[in-house]
């Protein structure tokens, strides 16, 4: 690095930019579609994680425990997005005071609702002998039942005894049995056993020396993946009986969970994370330039993406790649204004809609949501759209622009650029810019028939728009063609496999696991990339629940001279 210091900073930056853009990152071999029986590689088991619960997992779990009419009003502190997913960031997230405060307020609010007169009749399975005295028997019955659902495992006898004692002691000062339950519940809901998903390992009897997630940890992993919620009673029962360790027992539960209406909730949660839909919370457009882009339209645009995804991947059991070419979608009243399509529906809800052959729109890249998300407040952005496609959908990093870019060409008031294509031509002419912008602009220019709010147009500033472009050698002439090119991109497949896997295990995917992901990709190459197929392939894989020996045990084993339990590295 010392040698590089002698270069001027400008040259250094230019050099770094070129170097950065010319490398594509670690190269993955293109999946071979000719290999008939790819053999599954074995990978070293990963360490257990301690993952912070997400806002939707929290709300859904509460609904599962206490019923959907319990009001949960909370906004979680933002979590670092790691490797494209908040789910991965949660495995290293920290609860600062500022982040814990709203959780405390929420815990107390939920506890108060659960024991109020309206809810106690059906949530609490017993009635105390006296309403103003402690009743340990009733408290024990209730707290054992609800604590198991909250902690996602049975309470230990120690925990239960302590909880009953707290509930009883709290009756005195308040003179109310239910207040005692309320305080205890609020403690449970602020406990790390609820707020963090803690993976527990146990020795795997089927593979001596190896470890597996215990039954309750398996239940949590399955439930958060498939339902975006904590395990229900039946899943916990299956875990308790050891059925999740048995392939048939596991399949029974997975079939049940995928067949449940809550499965759609799980699918939505994955795509909300993967497609970075959090940006819709703060998405606004200039009201003068795009007056129809109301807050309700923003909500509806976000919902359109998720409805399309769920309809395609769940109801139609479609191939993931076809999300970028499907003409089936849903429209709502305010969103339809931006599409200029009439809808026979009032202000709430949505109607199914199918774009016709020849329509300029097909696939989610031509939906208002995507187009507006990756654009400026008052105009479109080919660079942002191209970058969004690269980074989110193809898992390809696009480097940041260098600090001192020369915008003088665009700034020239005599330039009279009509279209974005003309403005961005400058990116291609300047060698400092061309390296990175060649990776983004030719893609995004395919979407130029859609303005910054996603509305269709054929002209910009009077000039006819040319929406031709290319994606890694595949050329197209409009947004529909771009969707087809994305559909055919090899990176699309490896990216969804990578992301779905990382999401399902809730942590960063290590370099040792690359071979496993390539294996999954090659299997799916033959079977097709239907979402349920992808999930089952991963869940039923022998490595899904494998876990490394616990750190503390490994440390003590390393320290001891015994050899009988040392962990294998398969």
């Amino acid at each position, binding site marked *: *690095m010392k040698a590089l210091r002698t270069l001027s900073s400008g040259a250094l*930056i230019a050099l*770094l930019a070129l170097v950065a853009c010319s490398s594509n990152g670690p190269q993955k071999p293109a999946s071979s579609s000719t290999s008939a029986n790819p053999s599954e590689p074995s990978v070293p088991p990963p360490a*257990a994680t*301690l993952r912070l619960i997400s806002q939707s997992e929290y709300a859904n779990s509460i609904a599962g425990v206490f019923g959907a009419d319990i009001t949960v009003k909370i*906004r979680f*502190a*933002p979590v*670092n*997005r790691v490797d494209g997913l908040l789910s991965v*960031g949660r495995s*290293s*997230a*920290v*609860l*600062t*005071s*500022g*982040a*814990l*405060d709203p959780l*405390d307020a929420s815990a107390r609010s939920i506890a108060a609702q659960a024991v109020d007169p309206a809810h106690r009749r059906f949530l609490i399975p017993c009635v105390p002998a006296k309403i103003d005295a402690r009743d340990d028997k009733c408290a024990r019955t209730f707290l054992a039942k609800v604590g198991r659902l909250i902690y996602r495992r049975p309470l230990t006898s120690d*925990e239960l005894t*302590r909880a009953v004692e*707290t509930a009883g*002691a*709290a009756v005195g000062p*308040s003179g109310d049995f239910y207040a005692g339950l309320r*305080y205890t519940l*609020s*403690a449970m809901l*602020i*406990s*790390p*056993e609820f*707020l*963090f998903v*803690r993976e527990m390992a146990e020795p795997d009897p089927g593979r001596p020396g190896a470890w597996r997630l215990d039954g309750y940890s398996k239940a949590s992993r399955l439930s958060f993946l498939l339902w975006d919620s904590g395990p229900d009673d039946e899943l916990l029962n299956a875990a308790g009986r050891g059925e999740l360790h048995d392939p048939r027992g596991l399949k029974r539960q997975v079939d049940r969970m995928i067949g449940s209406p809550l499965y759609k909730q799980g699918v939505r949660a994955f795509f909300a994370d993967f497609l970075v839909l959090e940006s819709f*919370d*703060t998405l*606004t457009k*200039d*009201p*003068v*330039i795009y007056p129809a882009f109301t*807050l309700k339209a923003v909500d509806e645009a976000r919902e359109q993406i998720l409805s399309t995804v769920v309809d395609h991947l769940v109801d139609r059991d479609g191939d993931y790649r076809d999300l970028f070419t499907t003409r089936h979608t849903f429209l709502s009243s305010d969103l339809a204004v931006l599409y200029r399509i009439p809808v026979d529906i009032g202000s709430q809800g949505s109607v199914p809609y199918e774009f016709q052959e020849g329509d300029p729109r097909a696939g989610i890249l031509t939906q208002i949501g995507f187009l507006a998300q990756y654009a*400026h*407040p*008052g*105009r479109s952005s080919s660079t942002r759209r191209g970058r969004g496609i690269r980074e989110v959908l193809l898992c390809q990093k696009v480097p*940041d*622009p260098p*600090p*001192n870019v020369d*915008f003088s060409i665009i*700034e020239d*008031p005599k330039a009279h650029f009509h279209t974005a294509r003309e403005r961005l031509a400058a990116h291609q002419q300047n060698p400092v810019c061309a390296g990175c912008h060649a990776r983004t602009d030719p893609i995004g220019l395919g979407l130029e028939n859609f303005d910054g709010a996603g509305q269709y147009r054929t002209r910009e500033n009077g000039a006819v728009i040319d929406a031709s472009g290319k994606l890694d050698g595949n050329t197209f002439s409009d947004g529909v063609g771009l969707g087809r090119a994305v559909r055919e991109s090899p990176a699309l497949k490896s990216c969804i496999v990578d992301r779905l896997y990382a999401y399902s295990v809730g942590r960063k995917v290590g370099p040792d696991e690359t071979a496993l992901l390539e294996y999954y990709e090659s299997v799916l190459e033959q079977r097709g990339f239907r979402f349920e197929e992808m999930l089952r392939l991963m869940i039923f894989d022998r490595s899904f629940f494998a876990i490394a020996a*616990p*750190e*503390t045990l490994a440390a003590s084993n390393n320290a001891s001279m015994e050899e009988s339990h040392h962990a294998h590295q398969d």
Partner: protein
Amino acid sequence: MLIKTENLTRRHVLRGILNGAAVTVSLPILEMFMNDNGTAMAATGEALPARFGTWFWGLGVNHDIFTPKTVGPNYDLPLQMQSLEKVKQHLNVFTNYNVLTDGRPNLCHYTGWVALRCGSAPSGRGQLPGQSLDVAIADAVGSGTRFRSICLTATGAPRDSYSFLSADAVNPPDISAVEFYQKMFGSEFQDPNSPDFKPDPGVMMRRSVLSGVSEQRKQIEATVGAADKVRLDQYYTSIRELENRLELQLKKPPPAPSCKAPPRAPAELPVGVDVELVSLRHRAMTDLLVMALACNQSKVFNMVYSDSASSLTRKGLDKTHHIVTHEEVVDPVKGYQIEASRFVGDSFKELAYFLEKLAGVPEGDGSLLDHCLIYAHSDCQLAKTHSIDGIPMFTAGRLNGAIKTGLHVDGKGEPGTRLGYTLQRLMGLPITSWGQGSMQTSREITEIIA
């Protein structure tokens, strides 16, 4: 510089190494510092505890119309600082202080503010190589009030916060004035001037219940790895802070003569970063913040006016402030970008409002602002080139007379961490240096020390 008794740390921070990972564990309040009034000072009759705040605006300034031509006191107020005229007496302005990256890339709209907040340039986007100085200061002076620190963002965007322990522990900001009102002055607010005070038995119950949560700590931590244990430690620290807060609520709060809780929440504002809307949100939040400080709800506060890549917009403009800084032509006559500098002007109008509001609350022999030390800065100097040399910085407030005001200090190319170091020392942190690599410094800016 003497460490004044009022700034003795009530919370000592253990730093250690565990399996190669730095560990921070906070010890609870040392009861010996607490007296009936809840302040270390009341026994000695000295002034109210000092407060520390930060104020951030994105996308810097335009040097030619920002940098005063003279240094020292009575500096000429340049064009871009005109809206700060009324608060000039409270300010110090610092120019020509640099951020040095030691070869790490200058990450646009990132490296600058990261370095000025935690003392070190990051090596990659998303990386935060240390905790921000307001966190260190809150550790030292933040206990004893209901909230350890307050974070606000006028943009209303949940990720706009520059107060952090690490990349995984960014202090979340309040994004709505209405929610902030509920938090400060809602049902759990205890009016310090209320004649009758009765400890709420519910609060006592909550406290004892929370201590039950902490009881399971050992069992749980025994089952997780070293890195996760550190995260759980932070969780338990947060629980302990919650308990301490409840403990405070059981004691009669010290009187606060200027405290007058607003009777109702402000009007709800829609989502959006239009510059007029941001101004409304900023002012609504500032009004509440000032009263929260007057009511001793916290001693540390952070306000973000615009995010580091300023996504602020103006009606009818198709691009954000950020894009304007890159695409707008430099006016040949004026020599700067007119539209971009309008946004800077708006930022300083808001800073002026912020400071005037603080200065408008009488406290002791002066104003609330006189007992504050505020650190205001941006992410770069000239947004067009993302220059991190000469990032503009201000201090505001007199910190009980510990700091001089009304000065223009020329940094002569020194690292900008000199200011952050000075401020932490003024707030009583027992540190002897701050920052890493070329940003490491042990030299205070003596010109401003009284």
